[in-house]
């Protein structure tokens, strides 16, 4: 079974630039999550999709972050414009049903904002 795919694996940008991350979850998984993990901390949920609808985006900085999952499969997370404090690893995860299930994580995208 293929795992959660993410790209790119690494990205370096300057502050005020834009960046986009892509995630393809495990086939058949209804729920998709984007997490931000700052060095030395645990992952923090940014947004949770159930199929193509948003379940929770309460911790997403909506003035600069946006995410979509148009066809209920893959998803894109965008930051525009980026700030220095956005430097982190962005993890995508999926689960079969919801957050009470085991979550399967992708390898992450390490973002460095200079």
């Amino acid at each position, binding site marked *: 079974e293929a795992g959660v795919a993410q790209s790119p694996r690494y990205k370096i940008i300057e502050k005020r630039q834009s960046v986009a991350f892509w995630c393809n979850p495990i086939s058949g998984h209804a729920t998709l*999550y984007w997490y931000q993990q700052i060095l*030395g*901390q*645990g*992952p*923090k*949920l940014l947004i*949770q999709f159930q199929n193509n609808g948003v*379940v*929770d985006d309460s911790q997403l900085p909506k003035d600069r972050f946006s995410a979509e999952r148009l066809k209920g499969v893959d998803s894109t997370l965008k930051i525009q414009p980026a700030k220095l404090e956005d430097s982190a690893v962005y*993890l995508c*995860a999926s689960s079969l049903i*919801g*957050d*009470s299930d*085991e*979550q*399967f*994580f*992708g*390898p*992450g995208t390490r973002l460095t904002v200079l």
Partner: protein
Amino acid sequence: SQQGEEDPQALSIQEGENATMNCSYKTSINNLQWYRQNSGRGLVHLILIRSNEREKHSGRLRVTLDTSKKSSSLLITASRAADTASYFCATPGYALNFGKGTSLLVTP
């Protein structure tokens, strides 16, 4: 927030020893999950224990859950260098909430 908090923050042991890490959380849960993160394999689910379970085993892992104390423990027996990683507990609520993790170092 239902965020779990792991203790200790860091743990260093030798191969063959047991490693115990603890997790405390704040509100009622229906399950608690443990994850491992290392540079090689990313974040991986280890075990899920439901609120009506007190103990669960998986290979060299033993997890306990005390809902009255709102705490859980993860025991790794006969540790190996490959167990070196950060370990997180996570509590589902409206979202899966992770603590800051316990950093485990197992030296040969």
